[in-house]
């Protein structure tokens, strides 16, 4: 059931991506409505897949790479809807975001789908709390990075006075900057909470809060980057290009922390191993 729902969700995300590209080309509101509708249906099916995994494991199915990536894609779509509802109006965001959602889904699909339970020592109340909160924070940072790319593209159009199709289709700089900031304001507290709950979980499992394993170290770097960005934004008034570059730097560090370390570096976060 989990696999069936997951694949259906993937299919709908694919259709939604096509819809978002049609919207980007035509700028017809019906195309956007259609793409969002299909994306929402895909998200519901995706929720079904996660619930099916939850039912089998009696725990959130995020203990392996397939589950974690699948949940991350789900959280990105959820965050997209939350930001579309509460955040600044960035109508073409879906066009830039949906290919990334598809990539995450493909990565999850390619990873072994078998759901396995955690080793007994790691089974704890803190596991779902830590994993879900951390993954949710990543979802917001991923959207922040997409907003940053859109900002840089639009800024380049304006600076070069090249006011063609891309200029017309990309939203105002201010909206993109506000979206970036909003993602940071949602993502940073979640990341902080994710790290704290991870430390509590580590203490319960291994008797120590922090062990400087590669994942922990990179998470700390990630936290420091976003903390610095938030500080500069709120205190100095950083915005625009500088904030966009910083968000992209955070995204690169996240790639190292989530993909490189989980997949190829030995450490305590062995859940992420490909096989």
């Amino acid at each position, binding site marked *: 059931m989990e696999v069936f729902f997951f694949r259906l969700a993937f299919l709908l995300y694919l259709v939604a991506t096509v819809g978002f590209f049609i919207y980007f080309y035509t700028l017809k509101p019906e195309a956007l409505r259609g793409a969002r509708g299909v994306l929402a249906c895909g998200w519901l099916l995706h929720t079904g897949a996660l619930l099916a995994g939850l039912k089998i494991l009696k725990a959130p199915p995020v203990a392996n790479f397939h589950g974690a990536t699948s949940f991350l894609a789900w959280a990105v779509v959820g965050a997209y809807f939350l930001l579309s509802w509460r955040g600044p109006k960035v109508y073409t965001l879906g066009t830039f975001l949906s290919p990334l959602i598809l990539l995450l889904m493909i990565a999850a699909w390619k990873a072994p789908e078998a759901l396995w339970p955690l080793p007994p020592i790691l089974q704890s109340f803190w596991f779902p709390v830590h994993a879900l909160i951390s993954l949710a924070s990543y979802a917001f940072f991923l959207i922040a990075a997409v907003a940053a790319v859109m900002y840089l593209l639009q800024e380049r159009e*304006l600076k070069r*006075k090249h006011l063609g199709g891309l200029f017309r289709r990309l*939203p105002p*700089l*201010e909206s993109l900057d*506000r979206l970036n900031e909003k993602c940071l304001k949602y993502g940073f507290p979640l990341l902080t909470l994710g790290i704290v709950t991870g430390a509590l979980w580590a203490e319960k499992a291994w008797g120590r809060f922090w062990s400087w394993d590669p994942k922990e170290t990179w998470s700390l770097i990630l936290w420091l980057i976003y903390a610095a960005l938030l500080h500069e934004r709120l205190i100095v*008034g950083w*915005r*625009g290009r*500088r904030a966009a570059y910083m968000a992209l730097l955070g995204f690169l560090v996240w790639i190292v922390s989530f993909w490189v370390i989980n997949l190829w570096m030995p450490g305590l976060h062995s859940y992420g191993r490909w096989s």
Partner: protein
Amino acid sequence: MVDGPEREKILLVGLNHRTAPVEVRERFALEKRGEHPLARLKAHLPEVEEAYYLSTCNRVEYLLVTPERERTLSGLKDFLARETGLARPHFEPHLYVFEDLEAVRHLFRVACGLDSLVLGEPQILGQVKEAYREAAGRFRSTGPILNRLLHRTFSVAKRVRTETGIGSYAVSVSYAAVELAKKIFGSLRGKVILLVGAGEMAELAAQHLLSAGAARLLVANRTLSRAIELAERYGGEALSLAELSEGLLSADIVISSTGAPGFVITPDLVRPLLRARKHRPLFLMDIAVPRDVDPGLNELENVYVFDIDDLKQVVEENLARRKKEALRAERLIEEEVLKFERWLKELAVYPTIKALREKAEEIRRRELARTLPRLQNLSEEEREALEVMTEAIVQKLLHAPILYLKAGYHRLGREAIGTVRRVFDLDGELEEAFRREDRRLEGAPEWSPWEKERKDSERPR
């Protein structure tokens, strides 16, 4: 009249910025020089059934529905000569006359801004709506054809606006400024504009930005009195040029148009302000020649500089895009003209359908009235059943000829109407001919006394 009633012609007579010089156009703007022309038109052209009058600074147009084309056209020209005080040879060469579908097409194009001086400008639609409101509301000079045509015009214009990008590219420097500002700031609400120098074009751009939502206007000028005068007009604040950096500190949009020989706003002036401004974006429009704003400022983060050439380039690119969109709009208009043509044709068919139904209904009632008294002991229910049955027979019999009329008209033109009118003798000509023939055979007088009596009794009292 075997071909049915004569159809009215739609006639559009007017002149615009392309066909007539301004001195002729202003003479034609009659509503500005006294009474509205629709108030007097009916008395001069009694045969006109419907009328509408549009007057803008670039065009004056009369849209008329009349069964007599030549008489109306000549009468209208006389009317115009009298009202404008211009002799016919002085304005006739400037007039254009469109008929029927040509008139419909022209009206659609006008409402969509395709015939405007600035291609695709949106104001004209409002003016067409206002002209229709005047005609339909104040002068009650419109009827079924113009009502339908004008409503169709509004929906065509709406369709063209939504389905093509004709109106979405700013084609004046001031509007380009608003468009660019919106792409930087999103909304202009709460934004502060700083005018450096007080040229006319700068003022116009500021006006557009204010009407697009900007909150406040600061004016910095070498002559403080001029700055004060301008600031007062817009409820703003005046500064001297020495206070420019204060102005730059609070401004979001700067429009510069001084006559200074060198750069007035330089990176050295702006750079120290950036941190104090909390890196808020700064949009500088330099419309002065020679330039006021050092182009090097564009390199600074969150600072965007557009000089007059950049702005003109935006305008030209946008105009080229509008022209491309205009082609798509023309295609849509052709489609809509065809739709209207279909409606017009159905309109021509309608009186025949009505006559056919009336005749059938009359026969049905007459026959029923003759039959029912003979059928005694009929219950109410049985009477009702007979009514329903006869109605059904009539409807079913008429179904095919009506379909033939509606569909056949498009293929066979007025011939279909003629055939149906003849076959069903809707004009009573056959009946009359037969009656004459019968009388001739019986040797009865052409006008029998009993028939005279009947005709007298039918005469309205």
